[in-house]
């Protein structure tokens, strides 16, 4: 038994540790035991028999958390048969939780986790009310093994992409969303009459209305996709009216109104490398994330391209180049998303008791010159292999040996 326990103990020693919850610690040890972080610090005793990883000269951070994408839900975007993220034909798909659509065997998972991303939000696609998002770790043979939290939030879209669902007008989008909320409340009050068909048809099915109730009771956050300033303000307005726990996503023009956003206590998910103007957001710019950070907005960074979730660190590096501080950027891909998704008691920093999602980098995690040396998810060392590394091995010398 003792031998078994010791086999579960890993000591990463000698590196510079960025706990995120506190200042960096030089020449420190991260002790992992049974999937959890047992200790972090400069004076941590390494138990005899622990597996030692020499990390001298290395940087150690929490695993990165990407609050975006369809990891596990979408293998090849162009192949419909591999897509599980959208409930077609239902624009108020509140009861749709993506979790059971996740494929733990997706080849996208190894490709991305070996670049330092250990946890992602699996987000439904669609329009108006897209469904419920779930947070997963990028390791595990089963959905249950990957699951971190489900649901994390209800997802709604208030951007141009939802206009059809609103009859062609942004005002229609807001009104339809309100009607769904009102009817959910109505349903909660008069469920039996509804079942007996004694009141008029409601805005959605009973299951979808019921699924909105945790949102309306403030138990489940609402992630609202909105980019244009006026759409962001609509989301804030609706959140005030219904006392919702709002999370803004996309938020391309949020840099115009950081004061309103902080006053509302609303966190924001932003993709830093978005700057191409469209009619949904003519004011889109690289400085969005830096200006929000400067304005005190609670901010997490995203990479929304599922197969390249690994570029979250490039997103963060560019946010720094455009004015965020490095510390802000690291927090925005670790502890802040953990806080926003309600899992900061277990995720997002290197502290005793937290889940051992840990990455050992050869240097600054945001730099291209930096490689990933070790990845731990729930304390398990992840082999640095993927279908892509196997292709490399096969074709490294030509002709290949089939």
């Amino acid at each position, binding site marked *: 038994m003792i031998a078994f326990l010791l086999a579960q103990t890993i000591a990463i020693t000698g590196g510079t540790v960025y706990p995120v919850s506190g200042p960096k610690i030089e020449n420190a040890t991260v002790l992992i035991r049974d999937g959890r972080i047992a200790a972090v610090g400069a004076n941590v005793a390494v138990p005899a028999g622990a597996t030692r990883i020499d990390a001298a000269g290395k940087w150690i951070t929490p695993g990165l958390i990407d609050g975006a994408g369809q990891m596990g839900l979408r293998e090849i975007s162009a192949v419909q048969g591999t897509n599980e993220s959208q409930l077609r034909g239902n624009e108020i798909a509140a009861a749709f939780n993506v979790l059971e659509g996740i494929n733990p065997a997706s080849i996208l998972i190894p490709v991305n986790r070996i670049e330092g991303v250990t946890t992602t939000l699996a987000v439904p696609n669609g329009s108006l009310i897209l469904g419920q998002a779930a947070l997963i770790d990028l390791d595990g043979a089963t959905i249950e093994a990957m699951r971190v939290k489900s649901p994390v939030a209800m997802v709604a879209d208030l951007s141009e992409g939802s206009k059809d669902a609103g009859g062609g007008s942004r005002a229609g989008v807001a009104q339809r969303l309100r009607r769904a909320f009102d009817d959910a409340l109505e349903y909660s009050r008069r469920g039996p009459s509804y079942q007996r068909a004694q009141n008029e048809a409601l805005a959605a099915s009973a299951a979808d209305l019921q699924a909105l109730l945790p949102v309306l009771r403030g138990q489940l956050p609402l992630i609202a996709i909105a980019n244009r300033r006026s759409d962001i303000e609509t989301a804030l307005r609706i959140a005030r009216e219904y006392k919702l726990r709002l999370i803004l996503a996309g938020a391309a023009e949020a840099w115009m109104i950081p004061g309103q956003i902080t006053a509302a206590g609303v966190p924001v998910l932003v993709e830093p490398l978005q700057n191409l103007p469209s009619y949904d957001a003519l004011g889109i710019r690289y400085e969005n994330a830096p200006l929000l950070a400067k304005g005190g907005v609670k901010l997490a960074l995203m990479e929304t*391209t599922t197969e390249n979730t690994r570029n979250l660190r490039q997103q963060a590096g560019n946010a720094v180049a455009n004015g965020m501080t490095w510390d802000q950027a690291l927090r925005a891909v670790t502890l802040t998303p953990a806080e926003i998704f309600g899992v900061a008691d277990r995720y997002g920093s290197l502290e005793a008791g937290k889940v051992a999602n840990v990455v050992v980098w050869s240097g600054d995690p945001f730099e291209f010159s930096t490689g990933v040396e070790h990845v731990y998810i729930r304390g398990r060392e992840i082999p640095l292999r993927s279908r892509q590394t196997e292709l490399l091995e096969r074709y490294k010398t030509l002709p290949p040996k089939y």
Partner: protein
Amino acid sequence: MRHPSILLGLIVMVAVGCASAGAKPASSTTAPQSTATTPSTQDTTAGIGPQYVSTYQRHPNPPVLIRNATILTATGQEIQGGSILLRDGKIVAVGATVETPSDATVVDATGKWVTPGVIDTHSHLGVYAAPGTFAESDGNEATRPVTAEVWAEHSFWPQDPQIPLAIAGGVTTIQALPGSANLIGGRSAVLKLIPGRSVQEMKFPGAHYGLKMACGENPKRVYGQRGGPSTRMGNMAGYREAFIGAQSYRRRWDKWNKDHQGDPPDRNLRNETLAEVLRGNIYVQNHCYRADEMLQMLDLAREFGFKIRSFHHAVEAYKIADVLAREGVASSVWADWWGFKEEAMDGIYENAALLQQAGARAVIHSDDAGGIQRLNQEAAKAMYHGRRAGIPVTRDQALRWFTANPAWALGLDSIVGTLEPGKMADVVVWSADPLSVYAQAVQVYNDGWLVYDRTDPTHQPKTDFMLGHP
């Protein structure tokens, strides 16, 4: 172009991308073999004479001396604390010490880095312009599978608000291509990336037109339910039919050009372009993801006696890097795009590095209005992943992936792509090592004209479209 991120409802234009590939033994540390490029090539069709002529004119500027910089010349040289002198649109001198002419504007670039201007072999700027509505969707003449008769320059919108963003990323030259819906999509436009009122003011004097061809899934998907092709064999038959038509057209015109007997043959725009390909005056730029399909296309090129200049989106080029090196075809690739469709599943980070190692010519291209703003970053990803896999790649070689090598793919390597005396003064001053994520273009000179200065709003071009917006 790939499917953009969908999750957050950010409206991103979806275009159909393209690809080409190619390779040629690329010397790593010496100046590239220059390609004979005659300034008359681009505007002249054999027997027809100049048409749609470039009206490009160099913007007059005082001489500029950039000094105290780390200069990466893309010829194998890295000069610490070096200087570079630009005069009349040309690089006059590069070195550790360059004399300061009395009339020169002096730029102190202490702590900064200098490279050649960035060149993108694969852009849809101007033809798939922002804001990305149907009104700006001018990249695919998707009405029939062979449209060799269309020219990208006739779609190109110089007021595309994405253009200044690319300039701010250090880009000085692009090839604007038709999309990849079609087997043969039309002529490309090779452009100086500068503000202008017309595409002809931007058209690169002396550049070869490209012919956009596309393999694989896109033409199949677009035409499968519309009369075909619906298969890859249908794709091949479509190319062959088109070039068979062009062969006899070319014979008739070549004969008439020689003897001028009787009336000239009737003109046919489609065959006119394809005949120029057969004559070697127009370069084939071929969207092609899969290794086996690239080999098919090389067979096609052999059948009709033309060269493919570059494969584009060549995510599987590394599987045939030896062949591409031998054939002298360039490969325009991404650092890490993969997985968005089946023919893109085998993309690996080490593609460019493996091509380099095999002696093939690697190019990092964008196909994307976002990616074009950071081709330096994409090259950095490809270089460092290559190195970690044990493939030796120098910084100079990686720099060449987005400067000298694309210059070759466009037939411009005797004019741009390196920092050497006599070359066009397309120069970028970076805030740091351009292969760092933190580097930003500080100044961009195009033919000696300071088209972008990060610290000076009077040198930050804004398109008509963006006027009046926040």
